[in-house]
């Protein structure tokens, strides 16, 4: 039994982009941080903080949106018989790419989703980040043209595909067992922020429901921000790009309606104005996403449909966030961290090494 997938059509992907573009600013209105209605990198970083993997006090919260993304995708994959447990395509490389993708994203302060949400909120610094993202993905396409690939996956036990969804359920359980207590920075084993972006969040249930809905639709539509740029550069194929543009347009309109649009470079929420490093951070992130085959959101959706390698990328990002804050690599509104620049350079070298050495021997 297979029905035509309307979400994989032109209007389907535009609709999903619009859906995310409207709901992200609404989540911001409901309590999420500025121009951060949804940010996969920032939210995974907040989760790392809540778990104590780093101790940056202002970014600690288990984000229900992320849990929803994975579980929503899994529900869709099961309903439409697309749950395919698979693993074994260079997992350790994906882990490393995930870690450096996170480090690059935290130098800019956002994943591709947040880059466009920042733009749609009037933050001019996002333009530098987006240009860096495009540049990094373009480098990735050069490697792809030269035969770069991560090797084949293999079908595996259903349990493998269930791992990340189960971990996400575990995180949800932890949130319910150790709920946030007003004025306390720790509840049970979980850390909570008393101020800063980690203290700003929409109600748990609403965040979870929106996350589930987006996860469901993104699985159906294959929404991917990295793929949007990659396919345009590589094949002149603008299918995914229409969804990405739809997200920007609808986020802009929603911000305008909600009074959240404020144009400028200075004083933007959770952003800095060091243009070169906004660009370079996202160049690193874009290259890592391109080499890993998906933006951070897409990796969550793939994990939900049984892709164990994408789940390893997700863990690379979470651990990378720990490194980013423990080692002073992440930026803050005052500028890049003490070792952020060095981390970007190391990350780019690592990505280039991976890109140059993982070639298809014969077609």
């Amino acid at each position, binding site marked *: 039994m297979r029905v035509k*997938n309307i979400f*994989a059509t032109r209007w389907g992907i535009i609709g999903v982009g619009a859906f995310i573009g409207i709901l992200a600013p609404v989540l911001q209105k409901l309590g999420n941080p500025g121009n951060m209605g949804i940010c996969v990198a920032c939210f995974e970083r907040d989760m790392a903080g809540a778990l104590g993997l780093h101790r940056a006090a202002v970014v600690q919260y288990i984000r229900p949106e992320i849990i929803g993304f994975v579980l929503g995708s899994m529900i869709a994959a099961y309903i*439409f018989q*697309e749950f*395919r447990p*698979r693993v074994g*395509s260079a997992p350790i490389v994906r882990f490393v790419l995930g870690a450096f993708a996170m480090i690059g994203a935290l130098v800019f302060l956002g994943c591709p989703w947040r880059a466009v949400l920042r733009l749609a909120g009037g933050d001019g610094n996002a333009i530098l980040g987006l240009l860096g993202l495009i540049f990094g993905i373009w480098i990735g396409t050069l490697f*792809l*043209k030269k035969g770069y*690939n*991560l090797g*084949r*996956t*293999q*079908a595996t036990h259903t349990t493998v595909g269930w791992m990340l969804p189960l971990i996400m359920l575990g995180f949800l359980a932890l949130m319910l067992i150790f709920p946030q207590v007003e004025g306390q920075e720790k509840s049970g084993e979980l850390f909570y922020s008393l101020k800063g972006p980690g203290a700003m969040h929409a109600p748990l249930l609403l965040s979870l429901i929106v996350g589930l809905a987006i996860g469901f639709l993104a699985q159906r539509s*294959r929404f991917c921000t990295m*793929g949007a740029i*990659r*396919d345009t550069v*590589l*094949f*002149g*194929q603008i*299918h995914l790009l229409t969804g990405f543009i739809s997200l920007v347009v609808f986020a802009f309109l929603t911000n305008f309606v909600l009074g959240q649009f404020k144009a400028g470079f200075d004083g933007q929420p959770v952003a800095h104005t060091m243009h070169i490093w906004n660009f370079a951070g996202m160049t690193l992130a874009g290259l890592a996403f391109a080499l890993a*085959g*998906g933006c951070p959101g897409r990796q969550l959706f793939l994990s939900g449909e049984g*892709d164990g*390698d994408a789940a390893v990328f997700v863990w690379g990002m979470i651990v990378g966030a720990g490194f980013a804050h423990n080692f002073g690599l992440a930026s803050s509104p005052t500028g890049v961290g003490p070792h952020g620049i060095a981390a970007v350079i190391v990350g780019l070298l690592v990505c280039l090494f991976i890109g140059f050495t993982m070639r298809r021997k014969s*077609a």
Partner: protein
Amino acid sequence: MAATVDARGLSCPQPVIMTLDEIKKGKDQEIIILVDTDTSKENVTRAAESQGCQVNEVSPEGEGYRITIRKG
């Protein structure tokens, strides 16, 4: 005689790259592409159609699909 592109187990954009390579460089008019996810199936058929190819048949095979296209 049809050429066969085995893209099973490969993630995006590999199946599309391999298909386009075969369309551009291969001699056979008919190409069979084997993929193992619905995403790859959609991407390959979309890419083939954008190259002016005709998608003749998409049939389930094993854990995935067998896509038969003919060059335009």
